[in-house]
């Protein structure tokens, strides 16, 4: 059995930041991530970030990821990519890696073997930075091959350099819908249109402007009503919505597309937190069921912490800050603090506050404060 001070689940911005801060304070640290490449969603974000300089504005997500990888490597953090957690409890994780290896025998039946490596990790503290998953909406034909999450398309083009389709309808005009539309164009696809069920474009004006300059119509008060095709998407029917969200009869239009990307929001991926027995609460503003945590990001299960989208859907910049906070908190609970950590925590809190400031994010700030309020009485005390 591997024994560490700190085990982090998820190698996205929150997980890597937590690992870095923990390791900087002398924690032996391991990061477990089920994807073939680390970096979470950062390695798909080829656009430049917004905000102020201390939030890495003007830097592309992929470059932020590279910097994090270097730091993790230099600090001697063990990165277990391609490993998946299948059980956990305070102090212990069970992980498994399944891979296909070429066999040394020349028997054709045994040309490959499925190698299933299993390990137990004993960890004093656990940080769950398991991120989010994409919401789906249900319309006729929504299960057809060719209907996929916008994030799925983004992964295919920006990480694996493969187009999932040639002509695309985007459903949803939040930042994900707008950014992925633009990135699909950069990758060489055609985007027929973006449909948005509400009467307003959901994402930032600057992203919407880029898409419009590229000639892509954004149809507000419209949604997809049907994916056409027998064994794969061969078209999409959209319709206008009236004030009570019902399709207006006769307003249907058909698009000749082979792919429908769904960008209708994200929800926290709190499955492992739930499995560990962490108490969850439903917060629509934060995207759904989230683990209750205190101001140090510890959940209701002692020794298990959360950071990033798992505790409320936000941005990579907030995930980085929460990750740092979780790393400092877990190290402190093991008696491994740096001089100046109190000041550091205050700075992180201030940055989180400013990231969550402004009319766009105020409801998130309120929801997070509410979550911590519940957490301060429900979670372990120092």
């Amino acid at each position: 059995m591997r024994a560490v001070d700190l085990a982090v689940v998820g190698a996205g911005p929150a997980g890597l930041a937590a690992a870095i801060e923990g390791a900087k304070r002398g924690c032996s640290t391991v990061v477990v991530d089920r994807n073939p490449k680390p970096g979470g969603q950062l390695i798909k974000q080829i656009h430049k970030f917004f905000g102020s300089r201390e939030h890495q504005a003007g830097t592309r997500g992929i470059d932020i990821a590279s910097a994090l990888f270097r730091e993790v490597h230099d600090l001697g953090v063990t990165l277990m990519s391609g490993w998946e957690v299948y059980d956990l409890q305070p102090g212990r994780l069970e992980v498994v890696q399944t891979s296909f290896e070429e066999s040394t025998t020349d028997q054709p039946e045994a040309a490959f073997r499925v190698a299933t490596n299993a390990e137990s990790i004993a960890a004093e503290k656990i940080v769950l930075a398991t991120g989010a998953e994409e919401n789906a909406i249900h319309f006729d034909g929504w299960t057809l091959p060719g209907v996929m999450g916008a994030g799925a398309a983004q992964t295919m083009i920006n990480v694996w350099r493969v187009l999932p389709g040639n002509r695309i309808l985007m459903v949803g005009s939040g930042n994900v819908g707008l950014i992925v539309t633009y990135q699909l164009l950069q990758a060489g696809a055609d985007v027929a249109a973006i449909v948005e069920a509400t009467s307003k474009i959901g994402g930032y004006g600057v992203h919407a402007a880029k898409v419009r300059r590229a000639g892509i119509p954004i149809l507000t008060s419209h949604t997809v009503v049907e994916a056409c095709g027998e064994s794969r998407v061969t078209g999409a029917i959209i319709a206008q919505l009236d004030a009570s969200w019902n399709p207006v009869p006769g307003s249907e239009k058909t698009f000749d597309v082979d792919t429908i990307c769904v960008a209708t929001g994200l929800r926290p991926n709190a499955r492992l937190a739930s499995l560990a027995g962490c108490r969850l609460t439903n917060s629509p503003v934060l995207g759904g069921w989230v683990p209750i945590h205190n101001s140090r990001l510890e959940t209701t299960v002692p020794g298990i912490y959360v950071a990033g989208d798992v505790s409320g859907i936000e941005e990579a910049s907030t995930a980085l800050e929460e990750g740092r906070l979780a790393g400092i908190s877990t190290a402190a609970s093991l008696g491994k603090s740096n001089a100046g950590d109190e000041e550091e925590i205050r700075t992180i809190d201030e940055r989180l506050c400013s990231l969550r400031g402004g009319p766009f994010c105020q409801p998130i700030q309120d929801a997070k404060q509410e979550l911590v309020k519940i957490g301060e009485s429900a979670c372990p005390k120092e």
Partner: protein
Amino acid sequence: MRVEHHPILGNLPKLREAKIQVDGKEIPAVGGEPIAAALAAAGIRVHRYTAQRSEPRGIFCAIGQCTDCVMTVNGTPNVRTCITPVVDGMVVETQHGSGQRNKR
């Protein structure tokens, strides 16, 4: 289709060439990329058919979460093709239901 040229990411670097068999037909692939990427590049959309209604399914989340893209790989059913790396010479089959029919 592969994204050969990209305004931010640049030209596609020289990749580790591999071949995999899909339902008996050989397709080009890149060693280490997910099986699902090789299929998408080859224009293959259907990964499996559901157990009860035999409905087609393909990639949905592409990050190992939803299990819609599972196929039978080297005789092992229910392999998530979006997070399973290609190894040269792999044998991939469209899965029917739980994959019992595909099992060796």
